[in-house]
């Protein structure tokens, strides 16, 4: 991996498009943690996120020659990941609750402050509220507010116009706020 260390993403993407598996793996090493975390945020268990990440990476690798560069490389990969995640979630048998560890990154936040207990209570309530949120509102909130993606990135990943993304984001936030009102005053 030494040859790819410190190389900018754009160069790695170019090399990967030319067939360099080493460059592609360097990109995965650089961005794989966040990709996996995003899949978890969509409501997948760790095992499901592993499987979906693998399928996403295989599709991305095979699709690289067709990647036209109109969107950023990782926006493109995240879009594949989002579609794969949706497919996986649709195949799940109906259950009253989602996976027991889905979205727990939010509930597991452990701030080292004197208000830790109060914060944990809010994080737990937030976790439940996110699970109850309609998927079309949850994905924009997760991408923008949990994962920190920009509006244009999140819109590209979800294949939405930025205005539609903003509208869903606002509705999602307002719905969460309503559910969590006692914790947010």
């Amino acid at each position, binding site marked *: 991996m030494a040859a790819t260390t410190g190389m900018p993403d754009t160069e790695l993407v170019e090399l990967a498009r030319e067939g360099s598996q080493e460059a592609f793996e360097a990109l995965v090493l650089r961005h794989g943690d966040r990709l996996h975390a995003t899949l978890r945020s969509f409501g997948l268990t760790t095992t499901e996120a592993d499987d979906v990440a693998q399928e996403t990476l295989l599709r991305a690798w095979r699709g690289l020659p067709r990647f036209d560069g109109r969107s950023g490389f990782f926006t493109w990969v995240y879009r594949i990941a989002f579609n794969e995640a949706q497919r996986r979630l649709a195949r799940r048998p109906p259950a009253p609750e989602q996976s027991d560890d889905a979205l727990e990154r939010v509930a597991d936040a452990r701030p080292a402050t004197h208000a830790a207990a109060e914060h944990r209570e809010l994080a737990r309530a937030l976790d439940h509220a996110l699970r109850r949120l309609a998927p079309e509102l949850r994905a924009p909130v997760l991408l923008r507010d949990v994962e920190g993606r920009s509006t244009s990135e999140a819109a590209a990943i979800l294949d939405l116009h930025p205005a539609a993304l*903003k509208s869903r984001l606002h509705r999602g936030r307002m719905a969460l706020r309503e559910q969590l009102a006692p914790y*947010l005053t």
Partner: protein
Amino acid sequence: MALLRKLRFRRDHRWTPAQLSAFLDDELGARARRRVVRHADDCPECGGLLRSLRRLLGALASAPPPEPVAERLVVRFREALEHRHGD
């Protein structure tokens, strides 16, 4: 003047809640931004809504860093690639 103020307050009270996400994301123009600030200062309901949305965004952003799984993903990717080549 009092009537004008009252009318402006009502108009801004209807308008403000829908602008709060854009306000918090710094996506409003300067004039609209000033209008939100002015109304949120005057209106306990909208001011409270703004504060609670701010707190919500803070809680959403406080998720811990992602698990270090990238090396595992690379290993699985290699194995899957070899497996599919072997098919």
